């Protein structure tokens, strides 16, 4: 049931008979946060089929044993580094879709990221969303290479976390620049400078040592400060291209993601925003089932995808992909990633997914 149909239902019931379900309580606009784990996260060592003998066979040095995972279902566990997210799982606020990808995967970071960013079209899916809805978007990371994601809309608010603030400059200079930019012959320059000034007050707190540290943590903390300024946020974090010596690097990367997400989620709760927020954590591909000769894994196919939020129906979706029926050495996908996009667009943001995704993709009911 989408928001509009639900509201229609309310009218039919009549106001007197209305018993408000919790999710009809007055709340702010629904928002979407996307976190891209760039590099190709090893899904098999994230949601781990630890008891599967084929898993141990394919991963002679990298396989995690029962005491290295957090069991969440029969034979399945989360990498122990994800412990900070366990409370969310236990509260039913984290959905895990198993085996997400597409039928014609590509093993280039570049091409595959482009695919996820454009949903297979020439323009970005978030750009089309922003364009059709007239929404402000924001990108909070050190990347500049996401531009395909945002076409054809106006550029998003972009923030590099930890960038020194403008007000380091003397007051007279700031005033002079403000005047020059306001009168600039380039409207785009003038507008961007104005937006930058609006951001300035929001970002004033995001300075100093406390805002350094792991990039995703800095990004998400900064993002929370900007909350009121956009509807859709995108963050990229690297460190997942684990071709060699994967064990340590992957654990480190997952730890940082889990800690940052848990802290972010707590921040949302503290501001009463949990129920207005959906957080999608994805990667451009998973990794090869068979580990390589350098205790690492190479670029692969399908992988699990995580969705967090107060309205999310937290559970495991789909089945774990088979470790023996492979596609060119990679896990096959059970869900097309655009099905998740469609569920977000239709059921979470109440928009038309067909025009944004350039086709009809079957939704996955995953909201409570």
């Amino acid at each position: 049931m989408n928001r509009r149909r639900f509201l229609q239902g309310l009218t039919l019931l009549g106001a007197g008979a209305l018993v408000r379900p919790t999710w009809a309580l007055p709340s702010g606009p629904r928002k979407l946060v996307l976190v891209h784990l760039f590099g190709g996260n090893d899904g098999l060592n994230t949601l781990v089929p630890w008891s599967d003998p084929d898993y141990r066979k394919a991963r002679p040095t990298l396989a995690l044993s029962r005491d290295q995972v957090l069991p969440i279902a029969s034979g399945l566990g989360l990498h122990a580094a994800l412990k900070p997210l366990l409370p969310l799982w236990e509260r039913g606020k984290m959905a895990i879709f198993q085996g997400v990808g597409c039928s014609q995967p590509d093993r280039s970071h570049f091409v595959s990221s482009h695919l996820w960013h454009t949903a297979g079209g020439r323009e970005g899916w978030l750009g089309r969303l922003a364009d059709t809805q007239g929404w402000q978007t924001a990108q909070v990371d050190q990347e500049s290479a996401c531009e395909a994601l945002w076409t054809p809309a106006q550029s998003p608010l972009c923030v590099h976390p930890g960038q020194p603030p403008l007000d380091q400059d003397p007051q007279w200079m700031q005033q002079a620049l403000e005047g020059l930019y306001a009168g600039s012959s380039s409207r785009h320059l003038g507008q961007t400078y104005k937006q930058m000034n609006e951001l300035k007050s929001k970002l004033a707190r995001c300075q100093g040592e406390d805002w350094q540290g792991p990039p995703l943590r800095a990004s998400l903390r900064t993002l929370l400060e900007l909350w009121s300024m956009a509807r859709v946020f995108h963050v990229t974090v690297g460190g997942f291209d684990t071709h060699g010596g994967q064990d340590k690097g992957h654990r480190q990367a997952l730890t940082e993601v889990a800690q940052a997400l848990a802290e972010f989620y707590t921040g949302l709760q503290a501001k009463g925003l949990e129920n207005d927020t959906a957080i999608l954590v994805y990667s451009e591909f998973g990794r090869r089932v068979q580990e390589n000769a350098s205790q690492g894994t190479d670029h692969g196919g399908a992988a699990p995808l995580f969705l967090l939020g107060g309205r999310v129906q937290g559970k495991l979706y789909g089945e774990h992909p088979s470790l023996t029926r492979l596609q060119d050495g990679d896990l096959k996908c059970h869900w097309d990633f655009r099905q998740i996009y469609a569920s977000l667009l239709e059921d979470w943001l109440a928009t038309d997914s067909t025009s944004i995704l350039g086709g009809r993709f079957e939704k996955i009911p995953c909201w409570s």
Partner: protein
Amino acid sequence: MTSLREACWLLRCCGFGAAPRQVQWVRRQGYTRAVDHWLSQTSATPAPEGWARWRVQSLIDWWLERMFQPQGFLLEKMTLFWHGFFTTSSDPVFAAALLLRQNQMLRDNAWGRFGDLLQQVSRDPAMLVYLDGFRNKKAHPNENFAREVMELFTVGPGLYSEEDLREAARAFTGWGVDWLRGGTFRYNLREHDDGPKKFLDLRGNLDGTRVLQRLASDPACALHVCQRLWSFFTGHPTEVQESQRLARVFVASHGNLKVVLRNLLLGDAFRACASLRTSIKSPLEYVLGLSQVADVRSWWGMNDLKKLGQLPFLPPNVAGWSQGDGWINTATLGERLRLVRQMQHARSNWMQKVRDLLQGCSPGQAAERLLWSTHQLDASPELRSVVADAYSHGRPLPEVVQLILASPEAQLR
């Protein structure tokens, strides 16, 4: 005499900055002669020393050094255009030697015939790796290159069917890389599908060469290339009439790129853009321009270029960098201003020269000299008065210089 503004515009579009000496040279020579002089420069580029051991980093340094030179910048600009047009990224093509060879090839053919350039690019090992051409075999055709060569490199979408695309991919089968001979082009006939094919209006046992010839001579290809040239050299969105005019020149000259580029730069439409003052400098233009101002190199790092949004050999996607307004967002503008702030700390020698130059000047004269020193000869009256005002209020000179270089005009061509 060419106007000051027009000379600055021409230099910033054709190169990476408008140093006063160059501006004066253009004004003395005259607009047309200046363009013809730049177009007459040779393209021979011997391989740099020790390149065999290079990493991508050295390659970037080498190229930026070439862009920095007072001669040959138009050729480097055109090479940069082709680098963004026939994109190849150091992810996944991390072999610097292949990227260097491609870069040399683009430079050597930068203003030759488009048809020749297209044939060379399609046989280029870095490109064969980047768009999976080397995986394209008779038994398992890979369509990646065939798709992009039509959609991005020649005719543009809408003029061919998926069937044409599959047939083109068949025609390219067997083109690959000979890794045993240092990664050179190799046509493996055993992997080539020599069956009959139907591609657009062609029939027969077509090979890659024939398909590329057909594409390069299509009027739609002429228009596509001219539109991209226009937006690269002006930083403005496509101008329909001017692109069509240039496309006619392209067709009439059989894709002679020097003729097309000359027509673009001498055209009324291009010259009229000078007065708009809305074309945003690319990050490379901005950074190299700042370097020219203080005559220092590499006070910035590769990470700065990445944050500004333009690191050579790492284009954002297969369609290359978007030009114009796309360069500026709230983060990249902030990075530009940060860089200027850093630069003023790093440049004490140069600042001393500026100080000497301003001895005993009136505020008006000082403003002129400061704008001269910061290569803003064509500054607007608004900027002039802000600078004169700052000077007469006794603002510290490094701060006034920072203001000029951070101003919106310094972001524009």
